[in-house]
């Protein structure tokens, strides 16, 4: 259990790229519900999941819905822990600058705006997975 939250530790494991399949988009709906039900929610982005967070997504040419603004809205739902694996980013030739700048406001720190994305190593991913009560993979 986390310190701030009496709910279970829910981790959403995102391993797939957006648009090719719907999993990334539909998983966000579960994230919001889990947050609304006051669970201790975090998101993990590994493998092609890191592609979900790229900035500048423009779906006009493919005729699909651009759901990337939903990631920026997560902070409003108190979802502030978005773990991105450093090795996955590097393998794909991306840096943090290629991703959206996502923030949340910390109630316990006079509503200071803080970064939601936390870059972690593969070894830290290993440990983080072991600490969860519920793992939902999409």
């Amino acid at each position, binding site marked *: 259990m986390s310190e701030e939250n009496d709910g279970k530790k829910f981790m959403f*494991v995102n*391993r797939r790229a957006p648009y090719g399949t719907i999993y990334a988009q539909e998983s966000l709906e579960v994230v919001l519900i889990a947050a609304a039900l006051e669970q201790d929610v975090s998101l993990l982005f*590994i*493998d092609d999941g890191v592609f979900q967070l790229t900035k500048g997504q423009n779906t006009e040419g493919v005729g699909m819905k651009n759901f990337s603004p939903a990631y920026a809205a997560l902070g409003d739902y108190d979802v502030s822990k978005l773990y991105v694996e450093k090795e996955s980013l590097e393998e794909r030739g991306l840096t943090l600058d290629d991703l959206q700048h996502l923030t949340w406001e910390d109630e316990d720190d006079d509503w200071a705006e803080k970064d939601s994305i936390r870059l972690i190593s*593969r070894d830290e*991913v*290993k*440990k983080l*997975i*072991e*600490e*969860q*009560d*519920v*793992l939902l*993979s*999409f």
Partner: protein
Amino acid sequence: MAILHTVNKSPYEKTSLESCVQRSDAGAAILLIEDGVYAALAGGAKAELVKAALADRKVFVLEPDLKARGLADQALIEGVESVDFDGFVDLTTQYDQVNAWL
């Protein structure tokens, strides 16, 4: 905590197993199901993935899926343990949580 990781994809087709092996901790278990069972073949070029996992994790394979695929008589990597669906259920009770590498 120790996690039971399920992998249902062939290591020759998808990187799910590789990703799982890289990010599962010592003491965890990996259960190969559906097309994931191909990773358990001793003679396969991807056998190294399961061998690496066996250093500090348990690896199980779902026998009904092996049989469906005509692999009942194939040699499995030493150390891989076969389970049926009853055994699959038991594993989910013996480990603390389950994570699916789809």
